[in-house]
């Protein structure tokens, strides 16, 4: 989300004497503003709690912080984080690979894609969360059912993007490669897949939060560890501070995952970056 902002800053700053210095100052100013806003919101929360709204419903930052600190010190939170991260990552990879393979395969086989079209549409329209009970039946209460739920959510998103990307490949590039005696396999590997890569990444990018959603939801339905379990458990105990503490951890996790995807994407798509 920061990339477009800095680019605007660059163009705006060009008119000034030292564009890089101006740009740095602006970026720092913005960061400062963001920190101040955060502090103000926390103070407001702290102030409102117990005065405007019952502490029971919204807890307060100090209690939430204490809960986070306590969980960190006794180490109990890490097992939950690890369970969720593991389910998210495994679900993400399985879903991503499955979706990409399916997308490329159907993208290059018009007959298969037309044949399967209505069924895929129906499956896609189905709220995947409704599959959770089935996954619990199939894969048990362990982490496998969470992985399955995350994977299914990711699979459809990545599949749809990959499929669209493969369909968008410039026919001239394919013809050109074929005239240079590329085999069908070479056309797929060296032209179609790299060309669809930015679409695949768009799919991966939007599916990261969904992998987390799948994992957390799975844990909320039936589990004995994981952040989803913890938020459910805290809620059941009427422990509002605990619920907020877990939410913060989940949000941080989501941000970290997005950052990871961005980093990987910029490595792989250097040609797109350098052109800017």
């Amino acid at each position: 989300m920061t990339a477009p902002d800095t680019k605007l800053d660059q163009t705006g700053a060009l008119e000034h004497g030292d564009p890089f210095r101006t740009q740095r100052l602006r970026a720092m100013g913005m960061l400062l503003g963001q920190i101040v806003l955060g502090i103000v919101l926390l103070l407001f929360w702290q102030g409102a709690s117990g005065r405007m709204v019952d502490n029971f419903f919204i807890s307060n930052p100090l209690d939430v912080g204490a809960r986070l600190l306590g969980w960190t010190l006794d180490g109990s939170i890490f097992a939950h984080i690890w369970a969720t991260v593991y389910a998210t990552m495994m679900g993400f990879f399985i879903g991503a690979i499955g979706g990409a393979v399916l997308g490329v395969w159907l993208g290059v086989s018009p007959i298969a894609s037309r044949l399967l079209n209505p069924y895929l549409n129906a499956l896609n329209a189905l709220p995947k969360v409704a599959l959770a009970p089935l996954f619990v039946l199939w894969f048990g209460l362990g982490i496998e059912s969470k992985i399955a739920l995350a994977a299914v959510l990711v699979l459809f998103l990545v599949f749809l993007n990959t499929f669209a990307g493969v369909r968008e490949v410039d026919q001239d590039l394919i013809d050109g490669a074929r005239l240079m005696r590329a085999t069908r396999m070479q056309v797929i590997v060296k032209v179609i897949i790299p060309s669809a890569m930015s679409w695949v990444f768009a799919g991966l990018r939007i599916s990261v939060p969904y992998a987390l959603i799948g994992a957390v939801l799975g844990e909320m339905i039936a589990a004995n560890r994981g952040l989803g379990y913890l938020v459910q458990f805290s809620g059941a105990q009427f422990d509002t501070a605990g619920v907020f503490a877990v939410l913060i951890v989940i949000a941080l996790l989501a941000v970290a995952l997005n950052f990871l995807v961005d980093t990987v994407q910029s490595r792989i798509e250097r040609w797109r970056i350098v052109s800017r």
Partner: protein
Amino acid sequence: MIDLRHVSKSFHKGRSVVDAVRDITLTIERNEIVAVIGPSGCGKSTLLNMIAGLYAPSYGQIIYKNTKVCDLNTDVGYMTQKDNLLPWRTVRDNVAFPLELAGVGKVERMARAKEVIDHVGLQGFEDRFPNELSGGMRKRVCLARMLLYGAQPALLDEPFAALDAQLKLSMHDLVLRLAAENRQTVVIVTHDLMEAVTLADRVVVCTRRPATVAVVQRIDLERPRDVLNVRFSNDFKGYYDALWERLRLEYQEDRV
């Protein structure tokens, strides 16, 4: 080498039919440079697409080396109007792409790519991506790529239209030298008469759409030609004026 026999091509767009090429009969000999010239949008590119086998003629047939062209003709090197470079590959990897497809080892591939990149004057740009280059440079990358794998015959679709005058001259020089070295058969589509007369053994003037052959002119200027000075000779002027007279008709009819 390439034999076009009563070739016609119509495109169907919904209910309307557009005739792009009508009844072209033309033989292109081995080692010959043929320039096809005509008004923009007259169907010249369609002709090249059919020679490359990208699509079949509606009527007539195209014979390549005594066999009918039915599928893609992978012998040809086709430099399309739009540069078909792979945007995620650097200049070097784009140029080496055909060799990579043929399974040539990396070391040899890179060495040969370097050679042709130097040939088209792009040394120092090997690690750039296509979208970092100007239109003219991209054209030169395409040319280098085609040179590298020695495709025969070469089909060039307005290859130098985007280049400035000086660069165009040096590219003409390059094409003539390479054609002589490799005994290259070249079919070049252009709307630049100067280019056509400078390069070609024969110039084929096409009418406006649907394209048919209006006149075929043999250019008997001696080779090797000096691309800079050949245009100032009297013979050149004679060919140029005669062809221009005929070509002008096509543009005039256009206006009526």
